[in-house]
Protein backbone atom coordinates (compact mmCIF):
# COMPACT_ATOMS: atom_id res chain seq x y z
CA UNK A 1 0.00 0.00 0.00
CA UNK A 2 2.92 2.30 0.73
CA UNK A 3 3.93 1.96 -2.90
CA UNK A 4 0.88 3.75 -4.15
CA UNK A 5 1.61 6.79 -1.97
CA UNK A 6 5.30 7.18 -2.60
CA UNK A 7 6.64 6.70 -6.14
CA UNK A 8 9.30 4.08 -6.42
CA UNK A 9 12.72 4.83 -7.81
CA UNK A 10 11.77 3.14 -11.04
CA UNK A 11 8.65 5.29 -11.43
CA UNK A 12 10.62 8.47 -10.83
CA UNK A 13 13.14 7.40 -13.45
CA UNK A 14 10.38 6.66 -15.95
CA UNK A 15 8.73 10.01 -15.29
CA UNK A 16 12.04 11.77 -15.80
CA UNK A 17 12.68 10.00 -19.08
CA UNK A 18 9.17 10.80 -20.28
CA UNK A 19 9.56 14.44 -19.37
CA UNK A 20 12.91 14.59 -21.14
CA UNK A 21 11.35 12.92 -24.19
CA UNK A 22 8.51 15.41 -24.25
CA UNK A 23 10.85 18.36 -23.85
CA UNK A 24 13.23 16.95 -26.46
CA UNK A 25 10.42 16.33 -28.93
CA UNK A 26 9.04 19.85 -28.47
CA UNK A 27 12.52 21.29 -28.77
CA UNK A 28 13.26 19.33 -31.94
CA UNK A 29 9.97 20.31 -33.59
CA UNK A 30 10.45 23.95 -32.60
CA UNK A 31 14.01 23.95 -33.89
CA UNK A 32 12.93 22.47 -37.20
CA UNK A 33 10.09 24.93 -37.59
CA UNK A 34 12.44 27.87 -37.11
CA UNK A 35 15.36 26.52 -39.13
CA UNK A 36 14.03 28.00 -42.32
CA UNK A 37 17.06 29.54 -43.99
CA UNK A 38 17.67 26.36 -45.98
CA UNK A 39 15.16 25.79 -48.76
CA UNK A 40 13.33 22.52 -49.20
CA UNK A 41 14.81 20.81 -52.23
CA UNK A 42 12.94 18.97 -54.95
CA UNK A 43 14.04 16.94 -57.98
CA UNK A 44 14.12 18.32 -61.49
CA UNK A 45 15.50 17.37 -64.88
CA UNK A 46 18.10 19.76 -66.23
CA UNK A 47 17.03 19.99 -69.90
CA UNK A 48 20.55 20.96 -70.87
CA UNK A 49 22.01 17.74 -69.49
CA UNK A 50 19.22 15.40 -70.61
CA UNK A 51 20.27 12.90 -73.26
CA UNK A 52 16.73 11.68 -74.06
CA UNK A 53 17.59 8.12 -73.12
CA UNK A 54 14.00 7.28 -72.17
CA UNK A 55 14.72 5.90 -68.71
CA UNK A 56 12.53 8.56 -67.08
CA UNK A 57 9.48 6.70 -68.32
CA UNK A 58 10.40 3.43 -66.64
CA UNK A 59 12.56 4.30 -63.64
CA UNK A 60 10.11 6.50 -61.75
CA UNK A 61 8.35 4.86 -58.82
CA UNK A 62 5.09 6.21 -60.20
CA UNK A 63 3.18 4.77 -63.11
CA UNK A 64 3.05 6.70 -65.37
CA UNK A 65 6.22 8.58 -64.61
CA UNK A 66 6.22 12.00 -62.93
CA UNK A 67 8.45 13.21 -65.78
CA UNK A 68 6.45 14.61 -68.67
CA UNK A 69 7.10 16.54 -71.83
CA UNK A 70 6.90 20.33 -71.77
CA UNK A 71 6.70 22.40 -74.93
CA UNK A 72 8.29 25.85 -75.04
CA UNK A 73 6.19 27.64 -77.66
CA UNK A 74 8.52 30.62 -77.82
CA UNK A 75 11.37 28.37 -78.88
CA UNK A 76 9.38 26.27 -81.32
CA UNK A 77 10.09 26.59 -85.02
CA UNK A 78 6.46 25.70 -85.88
CA UNK A 79 7.87 23.26 -88.44
CA UNK A 80 5.48 21.69 -90.92
CA UNK A 81 7.41 18.45 -90.68
CA UNK A 82 7.85 18.38 -86.94
CA UNK A 83 10.32 15.73 -85.86
CA UNK A 84 8.96 15.81 -82.37
CA UNK A 85 5.72 14.58 -83.86
CA UNK A 86 6.90 12.45 -86.80
CA UNK A 87 9.68 9.94 -87.25
CA UNK A 88 12.65 11.09 -89.23
CA UNK A 89 11.88 8.91 -92.20
CA UNK A 90 13.77 10.19 -95.18
CA UNK A 91 11.69 8.53 -97.87
CA UNK A 92 8.00 8.35 -98.40
CA UNK A 93 5.20 10.17 -96.72
CA UNK A 94 6.23 11.28 -93.27
CA UNK A 95 3.16 13.14 -92.08
CA UNK A 96 0.77 10.24 -91.79
CA UNK A 97 -0.51 8.61 -88.64
CA UNK A 98 1.78 5.58 -89.02
CA UNK A 99 4.76 7.83 -88.69
CA UNK A 100 3.77 9.49 -85.44
CA UNK A 101 6.49 9.04 -82.87
CA UNK A 102 4.49 9.42 -79.70
CA UNK A 103 3.37 5.98 -78.42
CA UNK A 104 0.39 7.44 -76.59
CA UNK A 105 -0.73 9.96 -79.20
CA UNK A 106 -0.24 12.80 -76.76
CA UNK A 107 0.99 15.29 -79.38
CA UNK A 108 -1.41 17.14 -81.62
CA UNK A 109 -0.83 19.82 -84.22
CA UNK A 110 -3.01 22.53 -85.60
CA UNK A 111 -2.51 24.43 -88.81
CA UNK A 112 -1.83 28.14 -88.30
CA UNK A 113 -0.69 29.55 -91.63
CA UNK A 114 1.46 28.15 -94.33
CA UNK A 115 3.90 26.56 -93.49
CA UNK A 116 3.50 26.84 -89.75
CA UNK A 117 1.85 24.32 -87.48
CA UNK A 118 1.40 24.61 -83.77
CA UNK A 119 2.29 21.63 -81.59
CA UNK A 120 0.57 20.85 -78.29
CA UNK A 121 1.37 18.14 -75.76
CA UNK A 122 -1.46 16.52 -73.82
CA UNK A 123 0.09 16.05 -70.39
CA UNK A 124 -2.53 13.55 -69.32
CA UNK A 125 -1.41 11.18 -72.05
CA UNK A 126 2.33 11.83 -71.89
CA UNK A 127 4.37 9.05 -70.27
CA UNK A 128 7.73 10.82 -70.38
CA UNK A 129 9.37 8.46 -72.91
CA UNK A 130 11.32 11.35 -74.46
CA UNK A 131 10.90 10.11 -78.06
CA UNK A 132 9.58 13.50 -79.13
CA UNK A 133 12.26 15.25 -77.11
CA UNK A 134 14.91 13.33 -79.00
CA UNK A 135 13.39 14.14 -82.38
CA UNK A 136 12.93 17.81 -81.59
CA UNK A 137 16.40 18.11 -80.14
CA UNK A 138 18.10 16.37 -83.07
CA UNK A 139 16.34 18.07 -85.95
CA UNK A 140 14.48 21.03 -84.50
CA UNK A 141 14.86 23.82 -82.03
CA UNK A 142 14.74 21.72 -78.89
CA UNK A 143 11.50 23.27 -77.74
CA UNK A 144 10.26 19.94 -76.37
CA UNK A 145 11.92 18.78 -73.17
CA UNK A 146 11.19 16.76 -70.07
CA UNK A 147 10.33 18.16 -66.68
CA UNK A 148 9.37 16.40 -63.47
CA UNK A 149 5.80 17.44 -62.73
CA UNK A 150 5.55 18.40 -59.11
CA UNK A 151 1.83 17.85 -58.93
CA UNK A 152 2.71 14.17 -59.47
CA UNK A 153 6.21 13.72 -58.06
CA UNK A 154 6.33 11.91 -54.71
CA UNK A 155 9.56 13.78 -53.89
CA UNK A 156 11.35 10.62 -52.84
CA UNK A 157 14.42 11.06 -50.68
CA UNK A 158 16.48 9.54 -53.47
CA UNK A 159 14.91 9.95 -56.89
CA UNK A 160 14.70 6.61 -58.69
CA UNK A 161 15.25 8.35 -62.02
CA UNK A 162 18.36 10.10 -60.69
CA UNK A 163 19.67 6.68 -59.69
CA UNK A 164 19.72 5.48 -63.30
CA UNK A 165 20.14 8.70 -65.28
CA UNK A 166 23.27 8.17 -67.42
CA UNK A 167 23.97 11.88 -67.77
CA UNK A 168 23.43 12.93 -64.17
CA UNK A 169 20.68 15.23 -65.39
CA UNK A 170 18.28 14.83 -62.47
CA UNK A 171 19.29 17.44 -59.93
CA UNK A 172 17.94 19.00 -56.75
CA UNK A 173 16.46 22.48 -57.09
CA UNK A 174 14.92 24.74 -54.44
CA UNK A 175 11.27 23.94 -53.77
CA UNK A 176 10.14 27.50 -54.42
CA UNK A 177 11.55 27.34 -57.97
CA UNK A 178 10.79 23.73 -58.82
CA UNK A 179 11.01 23.94 -62.63
CA UNK A 180 13.89 24.47 -65.03
CA UNK A 181 11.95 25.93 -67.91
CA UNK A 182 13.36 26.94 -71.24
CA UNK A 183 12.53 30.59 -71.62
CA UNK A 184 13.69 33.11 -74.21
CA UNK A 185 16.43 35.37 -73.03
CA UNK A 186 15.45 38.75 -71.58
Amino acid at each position, binding site marked *: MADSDKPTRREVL*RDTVRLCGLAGGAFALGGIATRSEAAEMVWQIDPDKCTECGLCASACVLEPSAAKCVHAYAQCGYCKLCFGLFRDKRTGDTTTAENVRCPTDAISRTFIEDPYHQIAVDENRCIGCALCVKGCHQFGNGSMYLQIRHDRCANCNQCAIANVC*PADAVVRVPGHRPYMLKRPKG
Partner: protein
Amino acid sequence: MRRAGAAFLCLVAPLVAFGQTADQHSQPPPQFTDYRIPIERAAAPRDGSFQYVDLALLACLLVLTAWIVLKRRSRKELRIVSLFALGYFGFYRLGCVCSIGSIQNVAYAIAHSDYRLPLTVAGFFVLPLLAALFFGRVFCGGVCPMGAMQDLLLVKPIRIPASWRAPLEAAPYVYLGAAILFASTGSAFAICEYDPFVGFFRMHGHFLMILFGSAILAVSLFIGRPYCRFLCPYGVLLRWASVFAKYSVSVTPQECVQCHMCADACPFEAIQPPAIAKQDRTEIRRRLTRTLAVTPILIALFAFAGWRMSPMMASWDLRVHRAHVLRDAEMHPPKVKTVLADAWDRHRKTTQDAYVEGSAVEHEFAIGAPILGAWIGLVFALKSLSNLRRRGSNDYEADSSSCLSCARCYSACPVPHREYALPPLPMASIEPPEPVGGAV
Protein backbone atom coordinates in the same frame (compact mmCIF):
# COMPACT_ATOMS: atom_id res chain seq x y z
CA MET B 1 29.43 24.97 -50.67
CA ARG B 2 29.36 22.18 -53.20
CA ARG B 3 25.60 22.09 -52.96
CA ALA B 4 25.29 25.83 -53.30
CA GLY B 5 27.41 25.61 -56.42
CA ALA B 6 25.23 22.85 -57.82
CA ALA B 7 22.08 24.85 -57.11
CA PHE B 8 23.56 27.86 -58.84
CA LEU B 9 24.44 25.76 -61.84
CA CYS B 10 20.90 24.38 -61.91
CA LEU B 11 19.42 27.86 -62.03
CA VAL B 12 21.75 29.24 -64.63
CA ALA B 13 22.09 26.18 -66.86
CA PRO B 14 18.75 26.50 -68.70
CA LEU B 15 19.52 30.08 -69.71
CA VAL B 16 22.87 29.05 -71.07
CA ALA B 17 21.23 26.06 -72.72
CA PHE B 18 18.74 28.24 -74.52
CA GLY B 19 21.46 30.39 -75.91
CA GLN B 20 23.29 27.36 -77.21
CA THR B 21 20.35 25.56 -78.73
CA ALA B 22 19.04 28.67 -80.43
CA ASP B 23 22.43 29.09 -82.04
CA GLN B 24 22.90 25.45 -82.90
CA HIS B 25 19.54 24.73 -84.42
CA SER B 26 18.36 25.80 -87.74
CA GLN B 27 14.74 26.83 -87.56
CA PRO B 28 14.38 30.61 -87.40
CA PRO B 29 11.56 32.03 -85.28
CA PRO B 30 8.52 32.16 -87.52
CA GLN B 31 7.03 35.43 -88.72
CA PHE B 32 3.30 35.13 -88.24
CA THR B 33 0.73 37.49 -89.68
CA ASP B 34 -1.92 37.22 -86.98
CA TYR B 35 -0.93 34.60 -84.46
CA ARG B 36 0.41 35.26 -81.03
CA ILE B 37 2.78 32.71 -79.63
CA PRO B 38 1.06 31.26 -76.58
CA ILE B 39 2.82 31.16 -73.26
CA GLU B 40 2.82 27.63 -71.89
CA ARG B 41 0.60 27.02 -68.95
CA ALA B 42 2.49 27.51 -65.72
CA ALA B 43 3.55 24.12 -64.48
CA ALA B 44 1.77 23.08 -61.31
CA PRO B 45 3.66 23.73 -58.09
CA ARG B 46 4.06 21.20 -55.37
CA ASP B 47 0.86 20.80 -53.40
CA GLY B 48 1.79 21.19 -49.75
CA SER B 49 -1.67 21.40 -48.27
CA PHE B 50 -1.93 17.67 -47.59
CA GLN B 51 1.05 17.87 -45.24
CA TYR B 52 -0.96 19.45 -42.46
CA VAL B 53 -3.90 17.10 -42.98
CA ASP B 54 -1.48 14.17 -42.69
CA LEU B 55 0.05 15.54 -39.53
CA ALA B 56 -3.29 16.32 -37.89
CA LEU B 57 -4.67 12.90 -38.84
CA LEU B 58 -1.59 11.20 -37.45
CA ALA B 59 -1.99 12.96 -34.11
CA CYS B 60 -5.73 12.23 -33.98
CA LEU B 61 -5.26 8.57 -34.89
CA LEU B 62 -2.56 8.13 -32.26
CA VAL B 63 -4.85 9.47 -29.53
CA LEU B 64 -7.82 7.53 -30.87
CA THR B 65 -5.84 4.29 -30.95
CA ALA B 66 -4.57 4.87 -27.43
CA TRP B 67 -8.15 5.43 -26.25
CA ILE B 68 -9.45 2.33 -28.02
CA VAL B 69 -6.63 0.06 -26.90
CA LEU B 70 -6.27 1.20 -23.31
CA LYS B 71 -9.76 2.38 -22.39
CA ARG B 72 -12.23 0.78 -24.79
CA ARG B 73 -10.14 -2.38 -24.98
CA SER B 74 -11.82 -3.28 -28.23
CA ARG B 75 -10.17 -5.23 -31.01
CA LYS B 76 -13.14 -4.60 -33.32
CA GLU B 77 -12.89 -0.82 -33.09
CA LEU B 78 -9.13 -0.97 -33.45
CA ARG B 79 -9.54 -2.95 -36.65
CA ILE B 80 -11.74 -0.19 -38.09
CA VAL B 81 -9.16 2.45 -37.19
CA SER B 82 -6.30 0.50 -38.71
CA LEU B 83 -8.34 -0.15 -41.85
CA PHE B 84 -8.86 3.58 -42.15
CA ALA B 85 -5.15 4.22 -41.61
CA LEU B 86 -4.32 1.61 -44.26
CA GLY B 87 -6.72 3.27 -46.68
CA TYR B 88 -5.60 6.83 -46.03
CA PHE B 89 -1.85 6.68 -45.31
CA GLY B 90 -1.40 3.61 -47.48
CA PHE B 91 -3.53 3.58 -50.57
CA TYR B 92 -4.65 7.21 -50.73
CA ARG B 93 -1.40 8.96 -49.76
CA LEU B 94 0.62 6.18 -51.45
CA GLY B 95 2.57 5.23 -48.32
CA CYS B 96 4.60 8.43 -48.23
CA VAL B 97 5.37 10.16 -45.84
CA CYS B 98 5.89 7.41 -43.28
CA SER B 99 7.44 7.29 -39.84
CA ILE B 100 9.73 4.40 -40.71
CA GLY B 101 11.35 6.29 -43.55
CA SER B 102 11.52 9.51 -41.54
CA ILE B 103 14.46 8.08 -39.59
CA GLN B 104 16.57 8.61 -42.70
CA ASN B 105 15.56 12.23 -43.13
CA VAL B 106 16.36 12.92 -39.49
CA ALA B 107 19.76 11.23 -39.88
CA TYR B 108 20.44 13.16 -43.08
CA ALA B 109 19.38 16.44 -41.46
CA ILE B 110 21.72 15.84 -38.53
CA ALA B 111 24.63 15.16 -40.89
CA HIS B 112 23.85 17.99 -43.33
CA SER B 113 23.08 21.35 -41.80
CA ASP B 114 22.07 22.77 -45.18
CA TYR B 115 19.16 20.37 -45.45
CA ARG B 116 15.87 21.48 -44.05
CA LEU B 117 13.82 18.72 -42.53
CA PRO B 118 10.22 19.19 -43.69
CA LEU B 119 7.85 19.77 -40.79
CA THR B 120 5.65 16.80 -41.72
CA VAL B 121 8.59 14.44 -41.74
CA ALA B 122 9.71 15.76 -38.36
CA GLY B 123 6.20 15.30 -37.02
CA PHE B 124 5.98 11.76 -38.37
CA PHE B 125 9.24 10.98 -36.66
CA VAL B 126 8.50 12.56 -33.29
CA LEU B 127 4.77 12.06 -32.68
CA PRO B 128 4.64 8.22 -32.63
CA LEU B 129 7.66 8.19 -30.31
CA LEU B 130 6.00 10.66 -27.96
CA ALA B 131 2.83 8.57 -28.05
CA ALA B 132 4.95 5.52 -27.21
CA LEU B 133 6.39 7.32 -24.19
CA PHE B 134 2.88 7.59 -22.80
CA PHE B 135 0.75 4.81 -24.28
CA GLY B 136 3.16 2.22 -25.63
CA ARG B 137 3.33 1.24 -29.30
CA VAL B 138 -0.11 2.54 -30.30
CA PHE B 139 1.38 3.66 -33.61
CA CYS B 140 2.05 0.02 -34.55
CA GLY B 141 -1.39 -1.08 -33.45
CA GLY B 142 -3.65 1.36 -35.19
CA VAL B 143 -1.85 3.93 -37.31
CA CYS B 144 0.91 2.26 -39.32
CA PRO B 145 -0.48 1.18 -42.71
CA MET B 146 2.24 -1.42 -43.14
CA GLY B 147 1.43 -2.97 -39.81
CA ALA B 148 -2.27 -2.91 -40.60
CA MET B 149 -1.71 -4.69 -43.89
CA GLN B 150 0.04 -7.61 -42.19
CA ASP B 151 -2.16 -7.68 -39.12
CA LEU B 152 -5.41 -7.85 -41.06
CA LEU B 153 -4.09 -10.85 -42.99
CA LEU B 154 -3.10 -12.90 -39.96
CA VAL B 155 -5.41 -15.91 -39.97
CA LYS B 156 -3.62 -18.74 -38.27
CA PRO B 157 -0.77 -17.63 -36.06
CA ILE B 158 1.92 -20.18 -35.38
CA ARG B 159 4.59 -19.89 -32.75
CA ILE B 160 8.22 -19.31 -33.62
CA PRO B 161 10.70 -21.23 -31.49
CA ALA B 162 12.58 -18.95 -29.08
CA SER B 163 15.93 -20.00 -30.52
CA TRP B 164 14.87 -18.67 -33.93
CA ARG B 165 13.34 -15.54 -32.55
CA ALA B 166 16.44 -14.09 -30.91
CA PRO B 167 18.53 -13.78 -34.09
CA LEU B 168 15.50 -12.64 -36.09
CA GLU B 169 14.81 -9.93 -33.55
CA ALA B 170 18.37 -8.64 -33.89
CA ALA B 171 17.77 -7.88 -37.59
CA PRO B 172 15.88 -4.57 -37.05
CA TYR B 173 18.78 -3.19 -35.03
CA VAL B 174 21.21 -4.02 -37.82
CA TYR B 175 18.82 -2.58 -40.41
CA LEU B 176 18.43 0.60 -38.34
CA GLY B 177 22.19 1.06 -38.10
CA ALA B 178 22.74 0.44 -41.81
CA ALA B 179 19.85 2.73 -42.82
CA ILE B 180 21.25 5.54 -40.68
CA LEU B 181 24.74 5.11 -42.12
CA PHE B 182 23.57 5.16 -45.74
CA ALA B 183 21.10 8.00 -45.18
CA SER B 184 23.48 10.22 -43.24
CA THR B 185 26.08 9.95 -46.00
CA GLY B 186 23.35 10.69 -48.51
CA SER B 187 24.20 7.51 -50.43
CA ALA B 188 20.93 5.63 -50.32
CA PHE B 189 17.60 5.72 -48.61
CA ALA B 190 17.31 2.00 -48.12
CA ILE B 191 14.14 2.00 -46.05
CA CYS B 192 12.23 3.67 -48.88
CA GLU B 193 13.95 1.76 -51.64
CA TYR B 194 13.40 -1.64 -50.04
CA ASP B 195 9.97 -0.91 -48.60
CA PRO B 196 8.08 -4.13 -49.34
CA PHE B 197 4.60 -2.62 -49.24
CA VAL B 198 4.87 0.71 -51.01
CA GLY B 199 4.60 -1.13 -54.32
CA PHE B 200 1.15 -2.33 -53.32
CA PHE B 201 0.09 1.14 -52.25
CA ARG B 202 1.22 2.62 -55.56
CA MET B 203 0.03 -0.40 -57.55
CA HIS B 204 3.38 -0.23 -59.27
CA GLY B 205 6.88 -1.20 -58.33
CA HIS B 206 9.98 -3.12 -59.14
CA PHE B 207 9.20 -6.77 -59.81
CA LEU B 208 11.57 -8.08 -57.13
CA MET B 209 10.18 -5.71 -54.52
CA ILE B 210 6.62 -6.76 -55.32
CA LEU B 211 7.77 -10.37 -54.98
CA PHE B 212 9.42 -9.59 -51.64
CA GLY B 213 6.27 -7.80 -50.45
CA SER B 214 4.07 -10.71 -51.53
CA ALA B 215 6.35 -13.13 -49.70
CA ILE B 216 6.07 -11.08 -46.51
CA LEU B 217 2.30 -10.93 -46.88
CA ALA B 218 2.18 -14.69 -47.45
CA VAL B 219 4.28 -15.26 -44.33
CA SER B 220 2.10 -12.89 -42.33
CA LEU B 221 -0.85 -15.23 -42.84
CA PHE B 222 0.80 -17.51 -40.27
CA ILE B 223 3.41 -15.43 -38.47
CA GLY B 224 2.21 -12.25 -36.84
CA ARG B 225 3.58 -9.13 -38.51
CA PRO B 226 6.95 -10.43 -39.75
CA TYR B 227 8.07 -7.03 -41.07
CA CYS B 228 7.21 -5.20 -37.85
CA ARG B 229 9.01 -7.66 -35.62
CA PHE B 230 11.95 -8.79 -37.68
CA LEU B 231 12.76 -5.85 -39.94
CA CYS B 232 11.12 -2.56 -39.01
CA PRO B 233 13.87 -0.14 -37.91
CA TYR B 234 11.37 2.35 -36.49
CA GLY B 235 10.06 -0.44 -34.27
CA VAL B 236 13.43 -0.39 -32.50
CA LEU B 237 12.97 3.26 -31.54
CA LEU B 238 9.37 2.64 -30.51
CA ARG B 239 10.53 -0.33 -28.46
CA TRP B 240 12.97 1.89 -26.56
CA ALA B 241 10.40 4.63 -26.03
CA SER B 242 7.65 2.30 -24.89
CA VAL B 243 9.81 0.89 -22.09
CA PHE B 244 8.92 4.12 -20.34
CA ALA B 245 5.23 4.02 -21.26
CA LYS B 246 3.04 5.49 -18.55
CA TYR B 247 -0.05 3.56 -19.53
CA SER B 248 0.37 0.32 -21.38
CA VAL B 249 -1.70 -2.73 -22.14
CA SER B 250 -2.58 -4.66 -19.02
CA VAL B 251 -4.35 -7.84 -19.91
CA THR B 252 -6.66 -8.37 -17.00
CA PRO B 253 -8.15 -5.60 -14.95
CA GLN B 254 -8.61 -7.92 -12.00
CA GLU B 255 -6.75 -10.80 -10.56
CA CYS B 256 -4.93 -12.87 -13.10
CA VAL B 257 -6.14 -16.45 -12.91
CA GLN B 258 -2.93 -17.70 -14.55
CA CYS B 259 -4.86 -19.44 -17.30
CA HIS B 260 -2.26 -18.76 -20.02
CA MET B 261 -4.98 -17.88 -22.53
CA CYS B 262 -3.76 -14.34 -23.23
CA ALA B 263 -0.26 -15.58 -23.96
CA ASP B 264 -1.76 -18.08 -26.40
CA ALA B 265 -3.83 -15.39 -28.04
CA CYS B 266 -0.90 -13.04 -28.57
CA PRO B 267 0.51 -13.71 -32.04
CA PHE B 268 3.64 -11.69 -31.27
CA GLU B 269 4.80 -13.58 -28.17
CA ALA B 270 4.70 -10.30 -26.28
CA ILE B 271 3.05 -11.61 -23.12
CA GLN B 272 5.49 -12.63 -20.46
CA PRO B 273 4.67 -15.60 -18.29
CA PRO B 274 4.91 -15.05 -14.54
CA ALA B 275 8.35 -15.40 -13.01
CA ILE B 276 7.67 -18.65 -11.20
CA ALA B 277 11.10 -19.40 -9.89
CA LYS B 278 13.67 -16.71 -9.35
CA GLN B 279 16.69 -17.23 -11.53
CA ASP B 280 19.79 -18.32 -9.72
CA ARG B 281 21.79 -15.23 -8.82
CA THR B 282 25.18 -16.81 -9.32
CA GLU B 283 24.05 -18.08 -12.70
CA ILE B 284 22.95 -14.60 -13.69
CA ARG B 285 26.20 -13.12 -12.49
CA ARG B 286 28.18 -15.70 -14.41
CA ARG B 287 26.33 -14.94 -17.64
CA LEU B 288 26.67 -11.21 -17.10
CA THR B 289 30.42 -11.35 -16.64
CA ARG B 290 30.74 -13.65 -19.62
CA THR B 291 28.78 -11.24 -21.80
CA LEU B 292 30.71 -8.26 -20.48
CA ALA B 293 33.94 -10.03 -21.39
CA VAL B 294 32.71 -10.99 -24.84
CA THR B 295 31.16 -7.60 -25.73
CA PRO B 296 34.39 -5.65 -26.38
CA ILE B 297 35.75 -8.52 -28.46
CA LEU B 298 32.58 -8.68 -30.56
CA ILE B 299 32.52 -4.91 -30.98
CA ALA B 300 36.16 -4.83 -32.04
CA LEU B 301 35.68 -7.73 -34.42
CA PHE B 302 32.66 -6.24 -36.15
CA ALA B 303 34.21 -2.76 -36.21
CA PHE B 304 37.22 -4.25 -37.98
CA ALA B 305 34.94 -6.01 -40.44
CA GLY B 306 33.11 -2.72 -41.01
CA TRP B 307 36.38 -0.95 -41.65
CA ARG B 308 37.41 -3.61 -44.17
CA MET B 309 34.05 -3.40 -45.90
CA SER B 310 33.88 0.38 -46.05
CA PRO B 311 35.32 0.71 -49.60
CA MET B 312 32.77 -1.81 -50.84
CA MET B 313 29.92 -0.01 -49.08
CA ALA B 314 31.12 3.32 -50.43
CA SER B 315 31.22 1.93 -53.97
CA TRP B 316 27.43 1.53 -53.84
CA ASP B 317 27.20 5.29 -53.66
CA LEU B 318 26.40 6.98 -56.98
CA ARG B 319 29.07 9.65 -56.55
CA VAL B 320 31.79 7.14 -55.76
CA HIS B 321 30.65 4.92 -58.62
CA ARG B 322 30.76 7.90 -60.96
CA ALA B 323 34.29 8.78 -59.89
CA HIS B 324 35.39 5.19 -60.57
CA VAL B 325 33.70 5.08 -63.97
CA LEU B 326 35.26 8.38 -65.02
CA ARG B 327 38.69 7.34 -63.80
CA ASP B 328 38.45 4.05 -65.70
CA ALA B 329 37.39 5.93 -68.80
CA GLU B 330 40.35 8.24 -68.42
CA MET B 331 42.85 5.42 -67.98
CA HIS B 332 41.43 3.19 -70.69
CA PRO B 333 39.60 5.50 -73.09
CA PRO B 334 36.76 3.61 -74.80
CA LYS B 335 36.19 3.92 -78.52
CA VAL B 336 32.92 5.74 -78.01
CA LYS B 337 32.77 8.33 -75.28
CA THR B 338 30.33 7.33 -72.58
CA VAL B 339 27.22 9.40 -71.97
CA LEU B 340 28.42 10.21 -68.49
CA ALA B 341 31.86 11.37 -69.57
CA ASP B 342 30.25 13.43 -72.32
CA ALA B 343 27.79 15.03 -69.89
CA TRP B 344 30.59 15.67 -67.45
CA ASP B 345 32.65 17.39 -70.16
CA ARG B 346 29.76 19.50 -71.36
CA HIS B 347 29.50 20.98 -67.90
CA ARG B 348 33.16 21.76 -67.85
CA LYS B 349 33.80 19.52 -64.92
CA THR B 350 36.97 17.52 -64.74
CA THR B 351 37.45 13.98 -63.56
CA GLN B 352 39.17 15.59 -60.61
CA ASP B 353 35.85 17.16 -59.53
CA ALA B 354 34.19 13.76 -59.54
CA TYR B 355 37.15 12.38 -57.69
CA VAL B 356 37.01 14.97 -54.92
CA GLU B 357 33.30 14.34 -54.51
CA GLY B 358 33.75 10.57 -54.47
CA SER B 359 36.64 10.52 -52.04
CA ALA B 360 34.69 12.72 -49.60
CA VAL B 361 31.99 10.04 -49.53
CA GLU B 362 34.60 7.29 -49.18
CA HIS B 363 36.02 9.18 -46.22
CA GLU B 364 32.59 9.37 -44.58
CA PHE B 365 32.20 5.62 -45.01
CA ALA B 366 35.65 4.97 -43.57
CA ILE B 367 34.37 6.54 -40.36
CA GLY B 368 30.77 5.36 -40.50
CA ALA B 369 31.26 1.70 -41.45
CA PRO B 370 33.38 0.79 -38.37
CA ILE B 371 30.78 2.52 -36.18
CA LEU B 372 28.06 0.46 -37.84
CA GLY B 373 30.18 -2.65 -37.24
CA ALA B 374 30.62 -1.77 -33.58
CA TRP B 375 26.89 -1.24 -33.27
CA ILE B 376 26.16 -4.65 -34.78
CA GLY B 377 28.65 -6.25 -32.40
CA LEU B 378 26.98 -4.56 -29.45
CA VAL B 379 23.54 -5.72 -30.60
CA PHE B 380 24.69 -9.32 -30.90
CA ALA B 381 26.35 -9.21 -27.50
CA LEU B 382 23.34 -7.74 -25.74
CA LYS B 383 20.85 -9.99 -27.54
CA SER B 384 22.33 -12.94 -25.68
CA LEU B 385 21.26 -11.26 -22.44
CA SER B 386 17.69 -10.68 -23.53
CA ASN B 387 16.28 -13.55 -21.48
CA LEU B 388 17.89 -12.21 -18.32
CA ARG B 389 15.48 -9.29 -18.04
CA ARG B 390 14.11 -8.68 -14.61
CA ARG B 391 10.52 -9.77 -14.33
CA GLY B 392 8.93 -8.70 -11.12
CA SER B 393 5.40 -9.73 -11.89
CA ASN B 394 3.57 -12.79 -10.70
CA ASP B 395 1.00 -12.50 -13.46
CA TYR B 396 0.85 -12.77 -17.21
CA GLU B 397 1.76 -9.32 -18.43
CA ALA B 398 2.22 -7.71 -21.79
CA ASP B 399 5.81 -6.61 -22.26
CA SER B 400 5.31 -2.98 -23.19
CA SER B 401 8.34 -2.87 -25.47
CA SER B 402 7.28 -5.74 -27.70
CA CYS B 403 3.49 -5.35 -27.37
CA LEU B 404 2.10 -4.00 -30.64
CA SER B 405 -1.20 -2.86 -29.09
CA CYS B 406 -3.33 -5.14 -31.23
CA ALA B 407 -5.90 -5.70 -28.42
CA ARG B 408 -6.21 -9.43 -29.10
CA CYS B 409 -5.44 -10.49 -25.54
CA TYR B 410 -8.40 -8.70 -23.97
CA SER B 411 -11.04 -10.94 -25.43
CA ALA B 412 -8.95 -14.01 -24.66
CA CYS B 413 -8.89 -13.23 -20.94
CA PRO B 414 -11.67 -15.13 -19.16
CA VAL B 415 -11.84 -12.70 -16.25
CA PRO B 416 -14.96 -10.61 -16.81
CA HIS B 417 -13.85 -7.20 -18.01
CA ARG B 418 -17.15 -5.46 -17.68
CA GLU B 419 -16.73 -5.28 -13.95
CA TYR B 420 -13.79 -3.04 -14.46
CA ALA B 421 -16.15 -0.20 -15.20
CA LEU B 422 -18.19 -0.76 -12.02
CA PRO B 423 -17.29 0.78 -8.69
CA PRO B 424 -14.53 -1.23 -7.02
CA LEU B 425 -15.75 -4.17 -4.98
CA PRO B 426 -14.97 -4.11 -1.29
CA MET B 427 -12.33 -6.74 -1.51
CA ALA B 428 -9.12 -5.77 0.13
CA SER B 429 -7.28 -8.78 -1.18
CA ILE B 430 -7.77 -7.81 -4.79
CA GLU B 431 -5.71 -4.78 -5.41
CA PRO B 432 -6.70 -2.98 -8.55
CA PRO B 433 -3.85 -2.76 -10.97
CA GLU B 434 -2.49 0.52 -12.20
CA PRO B 435 -5.34 2.66 -13.47
CA VAL B 436 -4.68 1.66 -17.02
CA GLY B 437 -7.75 2.76 -18.83
CA GLY B 438 -9.27 5.03 -16.25
CA ALA B 439 -6.56 7.61 -16.17
CA VAL B 440 -6.17 8.03 -19.89
